[in-house]
């Protein structure tokens, strides 16, 4: 069933690819090639997701029974904190930008590499250093403040390795900043001739918007976490109520970044989905400029709505109103995207390859995630559902249902290009279905739990919530299967997978015009781009063949 016909003259895989072009560990650890750095990120992010997933499994196992009998209260608190810190700072934020973005963005815009390759490698080393700090904090007794590090608990009352974990998050922030910086400079300065802004693939638009958020948001949380560390280490009083400090100021400065951070997580996945939908319905995307502009407007409006995390925190009523209106406005661009994707399917020629199944899964889950955001934006409903499992379900639908589904879909779609091998198609589809079903089984009951009033971060809960919690834990095992399948057959495909052609899906885009795996310099000649993005149909007016001299 997989479409193998290529519509463009294909240079066969001649010459050495970036994988074979340098041997030995040092050629990997000191590489300046954006493709190798992407693979380094892929390995470290996969390792961290094993760890994060382990903690998630622990939480679900613990919550099967109302009494806290698997873990003690303290170790449960450390478990969900580690789950939060690792998932947010070390998987969701870097995943799509650092792996798929690093690998594909330069090729998609017709460049040889990112603008600042050494800074790209530095960003990976900073990521590893941040991960080392976080793992060290785990070994030295763990941290039990929640990934949000709320003061005064984190600065005065917690007696766990808060400073080490805070520094881990602080350092990983700079890795994200450097990736964002690289993307902004590359998109502005390194586009191939003819690649105007409105011919850029939507994948690049989404990563450009993400990079804006990374650059403008991350430093504020870096400073906030530094102030908490100073307050805890030296007794300075930034947020200490005894000397007149205000814990709510910490929440303001923390959420100024941490809300836009959720757009760092979802925007790249939206970029991937735009690519998947157009390729597998073999049609130009519906409303290209609207999707591109909605990415940028999500990134900008995302910065002025952080207060919806603080409706009940003692923030003034007026501020609650302002944040509520703005939060409802940010929902509109996301809705526009979903409408445009759906319209793209209309009159297309849709094939159900594994990446497309992940894209359908993304639609289902992101729809529920996005719409439940409306409940959280409504100040009255938030009075009831704040800090309950309704919120937990909402952000998991967006982060795991949206960002991870997009990441996996992208990984499947570009796997042949990255490794030169083809993954087993049937296994890919099965894993997509498993992930979709397992996810809904795990997190839909939590909406009900949330409205029933079960608070977050509870080690033991009243008995009447047990049935729904048991359902959620059962679903988690199906989800776990769904996630381990790709790891198995991706590794298998590295050795036994059939060789992939340069354009296995018949897709448009510069990355499909070069052999897979691509040569070190990406392009023997920098291409001149003359057609719109996703120009699948041979339209007479724009019939320009992309010039290629081998």
């Amino acid at each position, binding site marked *: 069933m997989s*479409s193998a016909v290529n519509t463009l003259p294909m240079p066969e895989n001649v010459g050495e690819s970036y994988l074979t072009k340098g041997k030995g560990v040092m050629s990997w650890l000191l590489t300046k090639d954006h493709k190798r750095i992407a693979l380094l990120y892929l390995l470290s992010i996969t390792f961290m997701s094993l760890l994060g997933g382990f903690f998630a499994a622990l939480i679900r196992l613990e919550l099967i029974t109302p009494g806290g009998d698997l873990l003690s*209260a303290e170790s449960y*608190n450390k478990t969900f904190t580690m789950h939060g810190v690792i998932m947010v700072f070390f998987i969701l934020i870097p995943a799509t930008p650092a792996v798929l973005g690093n690998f594909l963005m330069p090729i998609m815009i017709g460049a040889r590499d990112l603008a600042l390759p050494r800074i790209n490698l530095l960003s990976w080393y900073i990521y590893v250093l941040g991960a080392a700090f976080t793992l060290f904090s785990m070994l030295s007794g763990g941290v039990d403040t929640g990934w949000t590090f*709320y003061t*005064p*608990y984190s600065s*005065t*009352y917690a007696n766990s390795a808060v400073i080490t974990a805070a520094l881990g998050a602080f350092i990983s922030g700079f890795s994200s900043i450097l990736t964002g910086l690289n993307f902004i400079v590359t998109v502005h300065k390194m586009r191939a001739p003819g690649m105007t802004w409105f011919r850029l693939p939507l994948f690049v638009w989404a990563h450009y918007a993400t990079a804006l958020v990374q650059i403008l948001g991350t430093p504020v949380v870096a400073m906030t976490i530094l102030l908490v560390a100073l307050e805890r280490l030296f007794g300075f009083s930034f947020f200490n*109520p005894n000397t007149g*400090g205000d*814990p709510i100021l910490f929440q303001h400065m923390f959420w100024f970044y941490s809300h836009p951070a959720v757009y760092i997580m979802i925007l790249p996945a939206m970029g991937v989905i735009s690519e998947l939908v157009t390729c597998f319905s*073999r*049609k130009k995307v*519906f409303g290209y400029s*609207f999707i591109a502009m909605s990415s940028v407007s999500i990134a900008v409006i995302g910065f002025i709505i952080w207060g919806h995390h603080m409706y*009940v925190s*003692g923030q003034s*009523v007026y501020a*609650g*109103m302002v944040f509520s*209106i703005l939060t*409802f*406005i940010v929902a509109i661009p996301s809705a526009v995207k979903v*409408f*445009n994707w759906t*319209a793209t*399917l*209309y*009159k*297309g*020629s*849709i*094939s159900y390859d594994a990446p497309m199944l992940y894209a359908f899964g993304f639609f*289902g889950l992101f*729809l*529920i995630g996005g719409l*439940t955001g*409306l*409940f959280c*934006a*409504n100040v*009255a409903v938030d*009075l*009831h559902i*704040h*800090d309950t499992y309704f919120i937990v379900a909402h952000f998991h639908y967006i982060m795991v249902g949206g960002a991870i589904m997009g990441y996996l879909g992208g990984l499947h779609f570009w796997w042949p290009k990255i490794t030169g091998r083809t993954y087993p198609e049937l296994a890919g589809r099965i894993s997509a279905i498993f992930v979709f079903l397992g996810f809904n089984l795990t997190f839909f009951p939590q909406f009900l739990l949330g409205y*029933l*009033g079960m*608070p*977050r*971060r509870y*080690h*033991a809960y009243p*008995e*009447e919530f047990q*049935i*729904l919690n048991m359902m959620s834990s059962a679903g988690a095992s199906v989800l776990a299967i769904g996630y381990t399948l790709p790891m198995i057959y991706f590794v298998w495909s590295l050795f036994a997978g059939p060789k992939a052609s340069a354009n296995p899906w018949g897709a448009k885009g510069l990355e499909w015009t070069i052999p897979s795996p691509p040569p070190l310099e990406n392009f023997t000649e920098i291409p001149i781009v003359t057609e719109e993005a996703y*120009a*699948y149909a041979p*339209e007479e007016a724009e019939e320009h063949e992309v010039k290629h001299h081998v």
Partner: protein
Amino acid sequence: MPKDLQLFPDSAATGAAGVDANYLYILAVSVFFAVGISLAILYFALRYKRKSEADVPKPIHGSIALELTWTIIPFLLAMTMFVGGAVVFFRNYQAPANSMEMFVVGKQWMWKIQHPSGVREINELHVPLNRPVKLTMTTEDVIHSFYIPAFRIKKDVVPGQYSTMWFEANKVGKYHLFCAEYCGTQHSGMIGSVYVMEEADYEAWLSGSVRGETMQQAGERLFNRLGCATCHKADNSGRGPTLVDLFGKPVKLQNGMSVIADEGYLRESVLKPSAKIVSGYAIEMPTFQGQISEEGLLQVISYIKSLSKSAQTAAPAPAAAPAPDAAKKGGN
């Protein structure tokens, strides 16, 4: 075995209806859009299945009209959702004038509740039916959050500040009380229950339960013991401003601005007197930080409130005032 699977929480307060109405309205709109879009995607996916590799669909660029419709309509819907929420949220902030005052102090992993009549409870709150109850809450250590799911309300209690919240129970029964803001090891143990009782049962419970002096009397005792009375004389002849008829009124400050003398202002003036100096007075008042507990502060504030005629809340006259009649007014 847990009782039968409950999918919608029971509601036991007047405010709950407003929250549920908002919830159901947004649920309806969301289900409509979710089902609509999912069906469209499913239909397109099946209808336009790829027949052969060669077929190439006609490109459709997009239509401005369509884009405008699915931008403006969701925007208007979203604004109606906002207005629905704002109305209920505003109402939650305006405690009715005649509401009963109760005081809550959160402490790492327990809720300490004081009734004006002097009754003290840990992790339990007894409230009369159909009577508005206003909670003035604070915490001694970290941030907690006083959450009663059946009343659909919660409010974070922040150290160094008073948070207020009110409800009017309209259904007798025992309901959950949770701490909703992560506060440390026993965060999940900081739970309790709220008992809504008929008026008669409540009065019986009130008089039956063991209690000493009312909060005002305890406050007055503290007021004298800590020597406040030496400066804050009733006839304003002391070194500090009089506290008679102060509560709820705007007070002129040294730096020209004025501020409403509410619980928070009184609390800050006791703990950090230099923060806001009343115009016309010197900065002589020492800080009492560390000499007075949160409960003591609430008692002194209750006493100061009792000095104000205008802010005379309908505090329930203590059923049987065992204590000697109120000490003579206005200190020595």
